[in-house]
């Protein structure tokens, strides 16, 4: 007799863990010759700007000894009308019942919008197969890219498009296609590119103009803010001449009052919800937050544009109006003749700095007929800096104490701003956080955290692994201090930070050995009992084998003599 559910919590957790693992790491990698898509044929029939049919035929083989799961994606606004799977096993061909091979997954574990709904197709082991599906779709704006080898890296892939007379396709390569029967194959792609971005638009319009108008028509009615909900301070600021302070207050209002929650369904995959609704709910996704900020800035008569953008996760340069190239929305503001790219989804971001995820990317400014595309600076407006001083001194017990002074600025200060924003009980969290950098739990003697910079002072007794005492002499082992890579990871929060930061490390109370400095590192040991190292961390130099880190390792390769 089965005895069900003796251990429900364990089963629950196991199932949850399994579900998460399946979602995060679907096992779909096989040797090419064992699982292969032979051909993919896509047929797109556009009826009007607002509707089209999509038919897809995939032929392939699964010669592995395991079932294989294929994921097919269709746009958020599409309906799957029909799907069929035919398999041939041992020479016998049969149709698989839909409920035996098809499942749907609407769980999106990533915070980044894909604009797609996903179906999973189970391909049996040791078979050849043919999968066909047909969707009806709204909004040709979702038609945005072709893949040279299809969606599944097929040996042979073609796409046939039927367009009504009044519409045309413009590709990223500035080629224009029109007609009732067009075939796209690898010859239409740029030589080294796997993806061809395009847009369907009415003849007589430009791609950028159409793209901009499509969004404008939908967005403008939604962008009116509920001014009852903003602070009186903002109204006061609007009467002053300090326009920067007013823009800052608008940004701060959205950043601090609207919680980022990634709920993106249906047309809201690409179009924001009404600004008033988001302000009342106090939550929204990137588009919802952006339209609130855009509405406020517009209300106060700034030159501002809601901007379709990409984060650094999207690799292709966003230089063509295709939603397939974008995954984010921000606000562009022209202030004092300068562009500000405002992303309120980053809670700790200082006004004026682009968020980390958009540094070095591009935006499309909706409605800016003069110039739609703009580049976001690759570096923050406020240079990130960290100064770290280690001061070694002998205590009354005759052992060595270490005093640590840490000063941070710009984006390297953002982690500390987080603690300040927590308001209540943040000191304990701050101590716990610092213990990741200094695990021997130094005491936090003093700290000041502001929106622009922070100062922290810590003290600890040197643990036994950090010191060799030989007679009356002490030698300090710097290996127990965080290396350059760890320090960068701790302060930037990223393994390879997307911005450059200037670091200064000062060691007081030890002799500085003579080491030839590496390129881009300044090393000064001329003063007795004082070493100063200056370097800049870039995306490249944050790595473990980078020059600054190797220099630090060289410095740590021998203990340094303590000078009382």
């Amino acid at each position: 007799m089965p005895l069900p559910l003796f251990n429900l919590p364990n089963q629950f957790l196991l199932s949850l863990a399994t579900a998460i693992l399946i979602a995060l790491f679907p096992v779909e990698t096989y040797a090419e010759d064992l699982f292969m898509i032979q051909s993919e044929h896509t047929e797109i029939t556009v009826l009007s700007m607002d509707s089209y049919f999509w038919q897809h035929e995939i032929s392939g083989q699964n010669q592995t000894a395991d079932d294989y799961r294929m994921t097919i994606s269709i746009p958020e606004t599409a309906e799957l009308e029909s799907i069929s799977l035919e398999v041939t096993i041992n020479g016998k061909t049969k149709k698989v019942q839909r409920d035996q091979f098809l499942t749907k997954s609407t769980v999106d574990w990533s915070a980044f919008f894909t604009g797609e709904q996903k179906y999973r197709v189970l391909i049996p082991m040791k078979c050849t197969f043919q999968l066909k599906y047909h969707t009806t779709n709204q909004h040709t704006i979702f038609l945005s890219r072709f893949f040279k080898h299809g969606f599944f890296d097929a040996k042979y892939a073609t796409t046939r498009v039927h367009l009504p007379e009044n519409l045309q396709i413009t590709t990223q390569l500035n080629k224009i296609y029109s007609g009732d029967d067009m075939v796209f194959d690898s010859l239409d792609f740029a030589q080294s590119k796997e993806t061809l971005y395009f847009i369907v638009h009415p003849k007589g319009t430009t791609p950028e103009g159409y793209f901009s108008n499509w969004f404008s028509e939908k967005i403008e009615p939604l962008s009116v803010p509920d001014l009852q909900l903003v602070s009186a301070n903002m109204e006061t600021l609007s009467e002053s001449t300090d326009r920067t302070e007013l823009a800052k207050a608008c940004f701060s209002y959205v950043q601090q009052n609207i919680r980022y929650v990634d709920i993106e369904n249906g047309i809201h995959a690409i179009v924001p919800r009404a600004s008033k609704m988001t302000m009342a709910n106090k939550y929204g996704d990137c588009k919802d937050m952006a339209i609130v900020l855009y509405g406020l800035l517009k209300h106060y008569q700034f030159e501002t544009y809601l901007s379709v953008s990409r984060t650094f996760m999207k690799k292709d340069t966003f230089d063509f109006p295709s939603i397939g190239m974008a995954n984010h929305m921000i606000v562009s503001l022209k202030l004092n003749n300068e562009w500000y790219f405002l992303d309120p989804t980053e809670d700790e971001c200082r006004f004026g700095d682009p968020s980390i995820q958009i540094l070095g990317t591009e935006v499309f400014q909706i409605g800016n007929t003069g110039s739609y595309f703009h580049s976001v600076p690759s570096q923050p407006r406020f240079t990130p800096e960290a100064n770290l001083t280690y001061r070694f001194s002998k205590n009354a017990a005759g052992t060595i104490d270490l005093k640590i002074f840490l000063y941070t600025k710009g984006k390297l200060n953002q982690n500390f701003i987080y603690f300040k924003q927590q308001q209540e009980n943040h000191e304990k969290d701050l101590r716990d956080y610092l213990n990741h950098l200094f695990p021997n739990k130094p005491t936090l003697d003093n700290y000041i955290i502001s929106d622009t910079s922070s100062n922290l002072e810590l003290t600890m007794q040197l643990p036994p692994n950090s010191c060799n005492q030989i007679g009356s002499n002490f030698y300090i082992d710097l290996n127990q201090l965080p290396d350059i890579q760890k320090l960068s990871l701790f302060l930037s929060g990223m393994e390879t930070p997307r911005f450059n930061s200037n670091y200064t490390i000062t060691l007081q109370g030890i002799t500085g050995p003579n080491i030839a400095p590496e390129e881009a590192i300044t090393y000064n040991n001329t003063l007795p009992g004082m070493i100063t190292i200056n370097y800049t961390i870039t995306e490249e130099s944050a790595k473990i084998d980078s020059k600054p880190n190797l220099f630090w390792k060289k410095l740590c390769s021998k203990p340094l003599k303590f000078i009382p």
Partner: protein
Amino acid sequence: MKTTLLTILFLLPLTLLKAGDDYKWPEYIPMSIPDQYKNIDAVYLENSRTIDFHQMNQTSEIYFKRIKILSKKGMETFSKRELYQFNDGIITLKQARVIKPSGEIVELEKEHIIETLQEEKYSYGTSYFKRIQFIFPNLEVGDVIDVVYQMRYDHYLLSQTIYMESDLPALNARLTLRNMSMLELNVFPMQNMTDFISRSSDDIPTFAWHKTNVEQQTESFFSAPAPNSSKVSYNLWYRGEILTYDNYYEFDLMQYRESKGIIGFNKLLQKEGLLQDEQTPLNKLIRLIWHIEQHFEWISEAETSATVKTTDYFSRKVVNKTLFFRYMQAFMDENKIDYNIGFTQDLDDGKFEPGYVSFSQLQHRFLEIKDLEGNAHYLFSPSSPNSFYYMDEIPFYAEGNNGIILNGDKINLTNAFNTVIPVSDQLSNKHTANILLKVNSLVTDSIAFKRSDLFTGHYSVLFRGDNRASSLRHFAVAEELVPPVDSLLYYPYDLNFKQEGHYKELINEIEDTLFWFKPELLLPSGIYFEDEQNEEITEFGILPFIKSDKFSVYLESSTPINLRETTKTLVYNNEIGLVKAEAIQINDHTIKFIYEIKLTKRILENKIQNEALQQLLQGWFNIRTKKWAVSQ
């Protein structure tokens, strides 16, 4: 009786009482927050769970949670609540609302309740997973969130142990069990749960508990329910009866002993060449376990059919938990080895409570086997192909817990007696390493070594099956798989590895004659696991086992060497244990380094003791990574 039970479970008529969509929210009465909770992020004003057993093999559970948001962090944490639904159990009711400090009530509209799902097809069926997100708009510190949801199962949850402690402290925690089924509901309240209401309102037998100021229960790697946690176990059993060990024994006989087609097991084993006449029956049993461990394929419990004879499974060389015990019992029955059946539960799930028969407590089955001298030996089942337990090896999840021993024949239970599962001592669980390093001069890149590592007790278990290579790496013995040169046949199953080779990067020059000697590479990086320092600190934790490790490292040079350190002994100890390193100049050519880890406390009863464990771990790190100054 067995047939009757199945009829009761599956053929009764359906009348399911639903919470329905018209859930009536409990009245909200503002209450002040006691001082002890004022610095936390959120607190349950009410945390209530109602379990209904319906007439036809269905169970529903209604959860009502009233949460007061006390900080900005709490607001951010609780502004999005998620529920998960799997194949087993569906959510039939989900509602939420916010009560503002002004008393205004805002119902959560459907657009703020987001449902997403994920299905996967497998050869054995479909896995189903649904996520339900409650997103609370305009949430502020001081708001109160009400959430209610109902889980429905198309079977009876026959037995559970329910704790009142949850993820937040609760000013009020309630549990109600209502029985509308044809079965009998028996409850066993433990610790401070003896004060409850038992009534039969509208002919529905009901048990209800209400506790105030219930503490938070945290969950992390080493966490377990504290002994003083408020808990209730229940069983559903035949009407008018209470589940006893007598009828459970009958059930157990059916599963493991009766009519399973094992006849002439000895002959089968002889045919396999497994039995030698000079061995004692117990030795033969030990050999049989090894044989199964090494040569049998692991199959899931679901792959075991009642219609297939056990001998057929044995011939197919397959094993799982159930088959393992059938093989063992068949062998012992035929060889007249005296044994009893025992049960206990995972210590991480709480203490086994004697005096109450509950399915939920009979989690782990074991055999108590008597040798010819009448001494008792324990045998636990494997839980996977890599976790076979030999005779007298007690899994660390069971060590020290209470249990029950059932003694009977092939028909009836004769006795049931309480037992305490033995706990291994510090000296039974050892990792001892002797490492001899030989150099001609300290100016060298490569050092010849001879190394011998001995693992005993629980350590030995960690090296079973495919786990051996990773355990060797983890305990810094070898990067590659090496076979043991020797292994003891009886508890504590000593496992000895011997190696010779060359180590690199153990010595580097500081200045002319001064060197750093770095034994770090020779020593395990953690006390139990590599990343244990990052584990969250819990209120009540159980460490796997207490132990004593000793690593002796001899640095021997053909030219004289000197230890230059002023401080030669490094020690860190606290109430959890001790870590130590000592450097000794043995003679002009040899320096000995002794490292020790001694764990003296296994059950950590409060946050302070858990912090002491973290400090001990840091202490070991500081000692292990010490570079010793030596000269030549």
